[in-house]
């Protein structure tokens, strides 16, 4: 392998061109159970996924959407100067929104559409982004989505506590509310590290492995998921550039990585 191919492989990893799917193991089982119950009771369920920032909530939501396939949809945020409500964005994600109407409640054809398609799960990441007014409309929209058709499971995340409390208040007695608290454990980090290694090796066609000290090091750490993946990317890119078969990183290197200095250094090296 010559230096240019090593650089291109390292760039692939640094640009995140591999696919790593991660979710808290119990999350999909919980949702499957909720979907089953929703079908029986024909009532919507709202699940609030709580966790520290960076503990992998968004990654988990992505994984859940991929896992459920056509039964799930993710409501993406569309920039509209605050004109599009959550229901409008939901209609866009279903590809049935007309630009000539602003939805305040779920229309009849939405029920029919969802019944035909077989949608069961709606995923909303960072719910507070969809706020267009300062009244309860966002929370009401969320409840309206959960009650569409024969009842849907709505999985959402938000770090804006007053909004979560408002939703709890509005939904009292109308739909079920679950709160799932998430945190990254050392076992989760190991799991992520191995998934990353497999994905990166698959993308760059290499067989780099973790050194023992690196594994020990991972188990002792507690950090944000995105930062952890960034450390892994940098370490993997270095191993590729140095043509190493083992991935090692010491404590000092990792600290540098968190500060971003090493990351910048590697990028600068790759770009020149």
């Amino acid at each position, binding site marked *: 392998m010559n230096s240019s191919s090593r650089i291109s492989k390292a760039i692939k990893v640094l640009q995140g061109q591999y696919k790593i799917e991660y979710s808290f193991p119990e999350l999909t089982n919980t949702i499957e159970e909720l979907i089953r119950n929703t079908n029986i009771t024909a009532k919507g369920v709202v699940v609030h996924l709580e966790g520290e920032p960076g503990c992998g909530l968004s990654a988990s939501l992505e994984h859940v959407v991929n896992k459920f396939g056509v039964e799930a949809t993710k409501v993406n945020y569309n920039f509209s100067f605050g004109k599009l409500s959550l229901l409008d964005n939901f209609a866009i994600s279903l590809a049935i929104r007309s630009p000539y109407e602003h939805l305040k409640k779920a229309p009849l054809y939405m029920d029919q*559409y969802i019944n035909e398609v077989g949608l069961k799960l709606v995923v909303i990441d960072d719910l507070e982004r969809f706020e267009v007014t300062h009244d309860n409309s966002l929370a009401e929209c969320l409840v309206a989505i959960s009650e569409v058709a024969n009842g849907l499971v709505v999985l959402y995340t938000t770090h804006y506590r007053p909004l979560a409390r408002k939703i709890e208040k509005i939904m009292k007695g109308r739909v079920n509310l679950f709160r799932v608290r998430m945190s990254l454990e050392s076992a989760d980090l190991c799991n992520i590290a191995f998934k990353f290694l497999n994905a990166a090796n698959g993308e760059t066609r290499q067989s780099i492995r973790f050194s023992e000290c690196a594994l020990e090091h991972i188990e002792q750490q507690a950090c944000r998921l995105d930062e952890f993946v960034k450390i892994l990317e940098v370490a993997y890119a270095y191993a590729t550039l140095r043509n190493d078969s083992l991935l090692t990183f010491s404590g000092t290197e990792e600290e540098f990585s968190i500060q971003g200095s090493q990351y910048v250094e590697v990028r600068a090296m790759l770009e020149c």
Partner: protein
Amino acid sequence: MLKSGLCSNAKMIAGESLSSWSYRLCQIPEVQQYLLHNAGGYGRGPRLFLSLFEFEKREAHCDLDFISPDYKWKVLPLIMGPDLERFVKPVNDAPMIPWGFRRSYCEDCMRENLRSNCSLMLKIAWRYVSKPFCEVHDMLLKDVPRQIGGALDAPRAIFKWNHSIESKNLGHAEYVNNWADLLKTACRVQKKLVKLRNLQHDSCIYLFDNTIMSLMRALLTPGMDLYRHSGSNRLLDIVSSEGETLYLSCYLQPFRASAACRARALFFIGILLGWVSQKEAFKSLRGDPWESDTPEKIWGSVYKFDKELYYWLRNSLIRFQTSALSIYTS
């Protein structure tokens, strides 16, 4: 062209119309991103495009389900790739309902496609004048108001209208139930016509098509006894414009008539061709002695309505005479 892995649900569905495909492609985020990136010069701010045609700023009065052989558009070939050539304007194709009057759809086909592909779709087959029945389900096509069928996001708009209260008030199911025998016979006539047309040589097809169109024009002329029947007031025909001459409305009516009216015209064509017996016609017309259940009565009805129309029809039938269709002319 978009990478196939990028949008697996962007593949053209068999029998799908170009306008429907253009609409479906616009639902893919990557396509929207591409359009937004390339629409920078318009200065209209961030917006979502309904269809690729909206981005292309198509001229009015052009048919969005077919492309001209000398097309020079930018976006369609880039995104759709070589499949686009399938939509070059067809030669020797059966008479089509113009884009402006497009509005028939099969509810079952839409539903099945929704289940299998999770997207709404319109078929090109719903635009043939002489095919008021779905070829897959043998069901009478439904109709939407003109402005809905002509929308760029027609698949969505039609689906929405189908589940609206206005649609339910039309009583399509009731009409189909009341005229079940007639529609069954008309469906048989449609199948026979399609089969016969496929056997024709390319050079003779225009005679075949013109014969059928002449008959349809005469039978669907507004104001005729054959055209008016129980439940016809709810069939959503496109109303003729004010000051329109009889001959103009006669020319346009097969394109403007609802699928139910076209099916009824096919039934009478079946009688004229001798494919429907008098007994069967009488039963299909619910035993009404005033209805035209024989070729003589049909000709008489046309003659009584307008002699000039009658002679025009006779001349047309002689002019486009073909051995494939032997029409009873008294």
